[in-house]
């Protein structure tokens, strides 16, 4: 026990003597949370658009006025013809082009039916979908008005089936409420995996492992000494991140915080296990860094944080079942936003505990004191 205590003391001493460590622990989470949360806002406003009004009638002007009034749209310029409008799309001056053909008002009045054309720049699929749905929203409002006028109704007509959406657990569809817990999850994953992956490798690189291996120090003690400090740091990081999230972003804390920490504590064993496993088969910090990046990038991109898992192809969805980060993000969101309790999350607890056992075993097996 005394030996273990001393090993831990030595590890902590070295960690805090490392000048880069304090910024990593305190600055990194603030910067990441602030920048990523604001940048990863999927809401669109000021969608730039252009129009080609070949009809030049009062009817077409009225539709265009609707767009101008919308807070989501911003006119970048008017275009004379299709070619001119395409140029605006080409040069990224506009995301959307609205084309009103000649005879629009005539058709509408005579045939009670007219066409307009929407051209959307779909380089960014997500933005394209959103701008399209905002535009159709405006157009359907316009439709409604026209129907009302034709029927001479003063009162608003209601369509037989009306859809009303309520976004549960995130009432205002606040992206920050989704992003902050997700980024928090990323943060402690990254801190845990990088720091633990680099640590043993560093001893290999400097050569101190050579001296350690000749001592009677036990493998378990050595690995606990390597893991425990980062486990503590990661959990501290979680608390720190939650505080920032609460203070700056006012994220909801609906569930039990001790439950969140309990889950995180088990989850960190998985992350640290992967880190230690990486550091047992690499020889330099550079190799370890690349391996850790490899795992982190796959885990994060397939975690459902930036792309919903439901949008992935079947095989990719299957892969997310073995992605610990996906489980973690899901659980963090469930606890914070939905207020899930242990009973709701028992499956996730079971899975992450199995992961932890597997990774710990792997880390223990792959670290060898002799070659």
């Amino acid at each position, binding site marked *: 026990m005394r*030996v273990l205590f001393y090993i831990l003391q030595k590890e902590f001493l070295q960690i805090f003597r490392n000048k880069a460590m304090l910024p990593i622990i305190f600055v990194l989470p603030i910067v990441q949370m602030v920048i990523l949360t604001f940048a990863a806002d999927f809401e669109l406003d000021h969608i730039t658009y252009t129009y080609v009004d070949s009809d030049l009638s009062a009817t077409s002007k009225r539709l265009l006025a609707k767009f101008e009034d919308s807070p989501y749209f911003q006119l970048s310029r008017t275009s004379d013809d299709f070619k001119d409008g395409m140029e605006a799309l080409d040069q990224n001056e506009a995301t959307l082009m609205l084309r009103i053909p000649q005879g629009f008002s005539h058709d509408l009045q005579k045939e009670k039916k007219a066409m307009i054309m929407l051209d959307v720049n779909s380089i960014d699929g997500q933005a394209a979908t959103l701008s399209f749905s905002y535009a159709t929203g405006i157009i359907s409002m316009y439709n409604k008005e026209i129907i009302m006028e034709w029927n001479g109704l003063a009162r608003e007509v209601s369509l037989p089936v009306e859809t009303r959406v309520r976004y549960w657990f995130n009432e205002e569809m606040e992206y920050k409420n989704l992003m902050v817990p997700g980024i928090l999850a990323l943060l402690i994953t990254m801190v845990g995996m990088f720091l633990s992956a680099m640590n043993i490798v560093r001893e290999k690189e400097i050569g101190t492992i050579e001296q350690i291996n000749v001592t009677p120090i036990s493998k378990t003690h050595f690995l606990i000494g390597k893991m425990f400090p980062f486990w503590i740091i990661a959990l501290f990081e979680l608390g720190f991140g939650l505080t920032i999230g609460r203070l700056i972003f006012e994220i909801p804390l609906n569930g039990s915080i001790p439950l969140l920490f309990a889950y995180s504590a088990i989850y960190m064993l998985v992350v640290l296990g992967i880190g230690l496993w990486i550091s047992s088969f690499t020889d330099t910090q550079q190799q370890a860094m690349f391996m850790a990046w490899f795992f982190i990038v796959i885990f994060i991109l397939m975690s459902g944080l930036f792309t919903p898992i439901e949008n992935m192809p079947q095989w990719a969805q299957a892969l997310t079942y073995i992605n610990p980060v996906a489980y973690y993000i899901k659980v963090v969101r469930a606890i914070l936003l939905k207020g899930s309790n242990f009973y709701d999350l028992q499956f996730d607890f079971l899975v992450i505990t199995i992961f932890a056992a597997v990774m710990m075993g792997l880390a223990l097996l792959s670290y060898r004191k*002799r070659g």
Partner: protein
Amino acid sequence: MAEGDPIMVSFENISKSYDKNPALKEVSFSVEKSELFGLIGPDGAGKSTLFRILTTVLLPDSGRVLFDGEDVVKDYQYVRNQVGYMPGKFSLYQDLSVRENLEFFATIFNTSIAANYDLIHDIYEQLEPFETRRAGALSGGMKQKLALSCALIHKPKVLVLDEPTFGVDAVSRKEFWEMLKTLKEKGVTILVSTPYMDEAALCDRVALIQKGNILKIDTPRRIIDQFDKTLFKIRSSQIYKTILALEKLPHLGTAYSFGQEIHLYASKDIEATDVESQLLEVGIADAEVKPGMANIEDCFMNLMVAENMEDHVG
């Protein structure tokens, strides 16, 4: 093993290859208690491999090593408790202070600095003024003393030093060998490897190792006595030209430059005048050839040449 057994470490037919490149070929020798045993050989001879097998961090392909009567593969825990190892590269924590390093190594051996201070007293005394300094900020000689202190803090029966004087200045080297002598007197068995042949003379016994083979094991004195050639020390104003000339006269022997001199290892029947006259024939007029006493380096150079020749023939 009986108390009176004089053998501390014995290597029995140790072989080890790295990816089919043999590093050690059937190496056997033993080291007695309280002996200062030197392993001398060029880089890549297999010295570190041998030491790493002894210190349980590397498994041999075949053969066995007995450490105080215990098999180093089976009873590796015993060995790890009883061996003090100083790797060739400085292997202490550079970001910990002198005192912290020493305390760390004392603790992982389940002992304390106070308990074994007498063994390191002479060495550590010189480090005490720098106790709070980070190990990384020490000078080369000081680092070496700290490494030695850390290797000794658990009072090991055997001290294994892998090229401890490599890259250390001449004064520190001399001091270091003095320290080893003192430790030996305190009963520690010491195995030390070095690429510097002059250090061989300071050991009780030395083994000359080359390409994974032990060429010779004996006391430095006896190795010198067994020198079977005549040594000529040749001085000339054109050392390089003279060496080239001697290479074209292989029947005289083999020549090496030793600083300002050339050492020629010639067969017993060749006289100094023979060498002078033959050099004169190839245009080197000012060569001054004198017979001299071989030192341990000459013996090793001679042995290694003989071995290389066999290699070429075989």
